[in-house]
């Protein structure tokens, strides 16, 4: 321990230390390359999204951050602490909400949280535990056995467990899977508050509209590699096209106007608002009467699909 402490003190403080720093991390499971040369820096206070299809390697990467899994190559630092060399400090700085809905059926909610807190050396932490339970609407269930909770309630306890030691960096692995709308919104509000209080947040989710509205920066993983890593705004700008959806009441769709069928309606790709005018002109000249029309901006889901398709 002593040598690690000294090592930490001697390190010159860099201008801006990253909350999470992943360097050249690879992970193999037998023949499967789950992660390949991952480099990532998440700044302090960021709200960061980690997206990717099933099996892309999101949970594996999170497990490496948490020390649950070990990288075959590369290194990871949490708040400047190496997750293997200085695992105590690294783990103290990190709160993880696991993807799997795990719980210990021997204990009540309060016991679960007290134990978790104690594992971090915090044995007189009831004020904060009560506050976390209150924020997550768990107070009424404090003395209920974990076994007797619904799935959504168990999920809230998992979130609470990740927060007992007030970690500066919080990683949530699909926290809203199987969670109802109300809890989802409550949970996001809570996470947003943590973020505005200065906590760094990393989340994975398959609900892309959630990621779009919450995350300032997003990384997309596919088969263990990053295929995109950019601000959400820049990612959304990647798809230049807007979609103009039209349904005709009468008339024949002019062949000159390129469009795809979408359930009886036609969708025309546009590059700018100006093109709306010309589309309407072509339709008027072909004596088409419009029944329905709307203009859709590309959303993160479109961008995601496009990136996953092309790379």
């Amino acid at each position, binding site marked *: 321990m002593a040598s690690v402490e000294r090592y930490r003190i001697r390190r010159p403080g860099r201008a801006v230390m990253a909350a999470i720093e992943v360097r050249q991390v690879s992970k193999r499971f037998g023949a499967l390359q789950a992660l390949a040369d991952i480099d990532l820096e998440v700044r302090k206070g960021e709200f960061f999204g980690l997206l990717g299809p099933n099996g892309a390697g999101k949970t594996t990467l999170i497990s490496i951050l948490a020390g649950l*899994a070990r990288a075959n190559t590369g290194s990871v630092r949490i708040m400047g602490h190496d997750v293997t060399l200085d695992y*105590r400090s690294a*783990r103290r700085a990190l709160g*993880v909400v*696991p993807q799997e809905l795990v719980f*210990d059926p021997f204990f009540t909610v309060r016991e679960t949280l007290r134990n978790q807190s104690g*594992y*971090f*050396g915090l044995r007189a932490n009831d004020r904060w535990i009560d506050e976390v339970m209150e924020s997550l609407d768990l107070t009424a269930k404090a003395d209920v056995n974990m076994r007797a909770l619904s799935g959504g309630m168990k999920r809230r306890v998992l979130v609470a467990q990740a927060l007992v030691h007030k970690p500066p960096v919080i990683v949530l692995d699909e926290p809203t899977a199987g969670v109802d709308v109300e809890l989802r919104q409550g949970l996001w509000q809570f996470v947003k508050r943590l973020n505005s209080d200065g906590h760094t947040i990393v989340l994975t989710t398959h609900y892309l509209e959630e990621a779009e509205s919450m995350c300032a920066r997003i990384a997309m993983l596919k088969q263990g590699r990053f295929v995109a890593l950019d601000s959400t705004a820049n990612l959304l700008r990647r798809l230049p096209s807007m979609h103009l959806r039209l349904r005709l009441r009468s008339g024949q769709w002019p062949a000159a106007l390129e469009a795809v069928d979408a359930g009886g309606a036609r969708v025309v790709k546009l590059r700018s608002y100006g093109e709306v005018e010309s589309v309407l002109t072509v339709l008027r000249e072909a004596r088409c009467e419009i029944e329905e029309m709307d203009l859709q901006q590309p959303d993160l889901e479109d961008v995601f699909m496009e990136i996953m398709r092309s790379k």
Partner: protein
Amino acid sequence: MTGFPTLLYKEVLRFRKVAFQTVAAPVLTALLYLLIFGHVMDRHVRVYEAVSYTTFLVPGLVMMSVLQNSFANSSSSLIQSKMTGNVVFVLLPPISYLEFFSAYVLAAAIRGLVVGAGVLLVTTPFVALPARELHWIVLFALAGSVILGALGLIAAILADKIDQVQAFQNFLIMPLTFLSGVFYSVHSLPAFWQGLSHYNPVFYMIDGFRRGFFGISDVDPRMGFAVVTGCFIAVSAVALMLLKRGYKLRY
């Protein structure tokens, strides 16, 4: 020592919450052994002069309960956590492998010793046990319980399924215990089996423990304790090595 006190507390709380299964049931089992074996054999077998068979039997049963329950505690706790996935709760915090080992093993020893004390207590109406060399009672009980606690930890680390822990218990721990002289003195065995018994570490635990009560034993208790200590060091080294590497815990 960050997480150790809480991990120990949690492990003890876990078996306390189901004390009916984890303490009362094994005490009852030991009592049944005593009533049946004691009743059937008391008039036919006499191992040591001046000690009735039933009296001879009690320390063996106590030690057997200590050992089996120590093993059961650490092994079932860890394998259940592994199977349900809640082992992540103790893998995420800054708990060192040494703390992890100490907490599981100590909690296992506490369970074993509580059950052992229970067995001793319920048998008092039936036998009047002397305690000639109290220190051997304490030393062998402690050593036996921590060794089996550590073995339980190893079994749970290596196992991928609950059945495999049970197999470890049924095919290793049980035979070693039954063939260690719980129900007899190894001196009553044919020479070959007597020789073989001396390779069974559990034999030394039972023999040394019994020595504390009657002041008589098959082998010198100092020799026995040396063997038992050696076992503890070996078993702990294996468990610590597995934990340090994160074998089957951190992938």
